[in-house]
């Protein structure tokens, strides 16, 4: 599945033009990206949480040469799936 499939779903269900559907899907993802860029966490109930984590610098190794290198501190994005999503993948009835 790609963004085009999501746009198609919005087009079919929301009564928008193709262009409007594409714009709104882009807006949803862009808004999420802006939030994460500010370092804030996003919680989508029924799907999962996107969390920005601070990683301290550490010493790593180039696996090819074996040489030690310093990996600089950085902010990374992690996704924690919700129980609802995990259950859906394992055929667990949400009503149960």
């Amino acid at each position, binding site marked *: 599945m790609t963004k085009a499939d999501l746009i198609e779903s919005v087009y079919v269900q929301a009564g928008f033009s193709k262009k409007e559907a594409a714009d709104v899907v882009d807006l949803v993802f862009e808004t*999420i*990206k802006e939030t994460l860029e500010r370092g804030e966490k996003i*919680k989508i109930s029924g799907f999962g949480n996107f969390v920005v984590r601070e990683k301290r610098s550490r010493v790593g190794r180039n696996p090819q040469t074996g040489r030690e290198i310093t990996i600089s501190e950085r902010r990374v994005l992690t996704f924690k799936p919700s129980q609802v999503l995990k259950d859906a993948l394992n055929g667990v009835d949400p009503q149960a």
Partner: protein
Amino acid sequence: MARRPFDLRTQQRQTRQRAGDPAVTKSDLVASIAIKNPEITKKTAEGIVRLIFERMRDTLARGERIEIRGFGSFYVKSRGPRAGRNPKTGASVTVEGKRVPYFKVGKDLRERVNGEDA
């Protein structure tokens, strides 16, 4: 249920929650979308956000991969059954295999989160 054993990650999470950790929820997201695009009512925005994540959830439930360019990709991995232990009694039990969702951040978002100007 008995008290859970000490877990650093749980404790850190609780500390962040006590500190009033700002989290943006689905309804905050809906509100921002309605503000940014005045043509869309809050109600419509809510329906669209719900539709997007429901479609994504159904896609992953079928075991299919999702790729949102500039954002990232979601995919499902299968984990085989393994021998586990009941942490309370120490009795060994078989943990069934299961399917687990994963997210890999896309290049643009990875760089933006890390403050690199893309």
